């Protein structure tokens, strides 16, 4: 996915909702933003390949 199509706070939010539901507990919003950035990184394909 091209990063120009990413809308912060909207793109990938469904995935984040799934992650949050799977955790089963309310999460701190800072941790959630970190997880959200990871999701966005995965979506735009910038995850380092090792």
């Amino acid at each position: 996915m091209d990063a120009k199509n990413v809308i912060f706070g909207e793109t990938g939010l469904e995935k984040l909702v799934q992650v949050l539901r799977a955790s089963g507990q309310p999460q701190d919003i800072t941790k959630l933003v970190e997880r959200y950035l990871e999701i966005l990184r995965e979506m735009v394909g910038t995850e380092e390949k090792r």
Partner: protein
Amino acid sequence: MSDKPNFSGSADQKALAEQIFQLMSAQGAFFASDAPIKQTLANLADFIAAQRKADRAKVVQEIDAALSKNDAVFGREEREDDVIYVISRLGAYRPRQEDTAHMFKRRLYEPENPLPVDDISVVVTTTRPALTTVEPVFISDYWQQQAGLTPIVPGDGQLSEVAEPQAAVEPEEVLEPTVEPEEVVEAAAAVVEKPAPAGTGIQNTLIALPNGVQIDLRRPVADLMAQYGPTLVAQFRAALENDPLRRIVTFGNDAFPEAAVENFGKNDLRRIRDYLLETSEPLLDSQIIADIFYHNPRQNDYETFRFALDYRLSREKDFEFVGVDGARLWSTKGMPAIGTKRVKASEMGQLTGYLEEGFDDSTAEQSAESIRSSGMLSHVLTFFEWEYGVLPYTKALAALLPTPLLQDQRTAVLRFESPQHYSSTLTELRYPTGNRGGWLQGLEEFFHDHLVPGALITLARTSEPHIFTLTYEEQPETTDRLLVLDEKKNKFAFANVSYFAAVDEDMLVNQQQYGRLRNLKSLPMSDRRKGDVALEHVFETVGEPVGTRSEPRYEATPDQLFVGLNVLRPASREYLAHLLDEGDEFEQDGERWSYAPPPVEIDEDEDQDDNLYDDDEE
């Protein structure tokens, strides 16, 4: 239905086939005309054998034979031990064919013969923006491939995996001038390590936040959070709040999917409200859960339930959150007010407005950082604070007390314990709003019982975020004539008071030092909130008269004025200095200030001006 299919076979078989067709058509009378209508051989045999009162086995054979002769109409499926016949209301069943040859989607995205383009800029935009921005313009993969920006790859949508960034065409984070040069070097080094294949294009990894800040997703999450953490959290929080689907909801710093948040019915809310009213003081969410819902903290869903309770109550207008981070307290309408009723909240907000105007010197002697780290704050009580049991929400107090947990939170309820008297006091902290200052109220009774104006008090944190201690240094009993406000007569007077607290002698409002304050008028709050009006009256009262009857003039030191002004209203030394500097009638003469009231016509019949007498001078 009118045009029945033609049946073949012997006359009996034709009749039987027609009868079965009518039966199955009646069964699917409300089906679409081409929808499959199915029936088993066993069911058909049961029905017809019962109708004809014939042998079932024989009927089975007859049906099978008759329908086999008409296999153009009756589709036959063998499933396990049974046979299923299929027809439609039109006759034989034929699966529907979807015609997708002319879908709009296909025409939009897959042009068979796209127009040739010589210049790619023609495709990008036909107009030039007024201001040059780095806002990316969408160019379809097709045209990027045509322009040679990206290689043509087999399959669709796999473009970004192949393309590697090139240092030469990498977009810069133009809106963030603080990008460290090391990162550029690192990025360049990374590119050198992975040489881009020939003919590769741009892999755009820059995303723009709603406030315009661009961040590069190639950087590690930890780096991004370190540099943009507060911005990212704020923007993410705003995005969640603006999400029309409200997929994720927040309470304080916690977030959870809305769909998984438990609902509370009207009856639950009524029980919570009744319980709060019964206890007459704000309660912790954990206490509400334990006492009303009998939920155990050891249960797996406890935190989820707690979040649900807090979130749902925050959406109800009958409940108000008055807690802090770590102690989520809830209040409801109709609960007893905390603190003095003698000063209205709107008046108090204006009286402490000088703090929001920047005249807050509370951290001059003890820095906010030291208060925050030590968790202790020392403060000398002024007369106004002592009289009304309020403490202005100065920077020093703000460093000690917790910040609001919710963005729109107006108040927090805190408990102050006195280890010296084994008592505790419920107080209400009003946070500043706009140009109105904040304050802490509810200490009136404690101050009057144990302290005097000028007493040195120490406020300290405890292990609980909403509980604090209030202590003072004890000393042997002292009796003095101190200023008091006679509420009934609405006049100030000096009265004998015994106290056991260590005091700042300069701030002790006793008759010996500030005898003239007995003439101070207890101005209405509407006048007190006007700093200049209050100061003029204080000056006329505490100042030493040095003028004449026709040209009155008063002199006083800033310390005297500070104590006097703090009898009528809270004020800092900086605010006092500001009022003195701004007032045209005030003049500085060395360390003293003088005040010459504007001339007024004096009625000869009127009694002498009280201010010219100094009957309290010792």
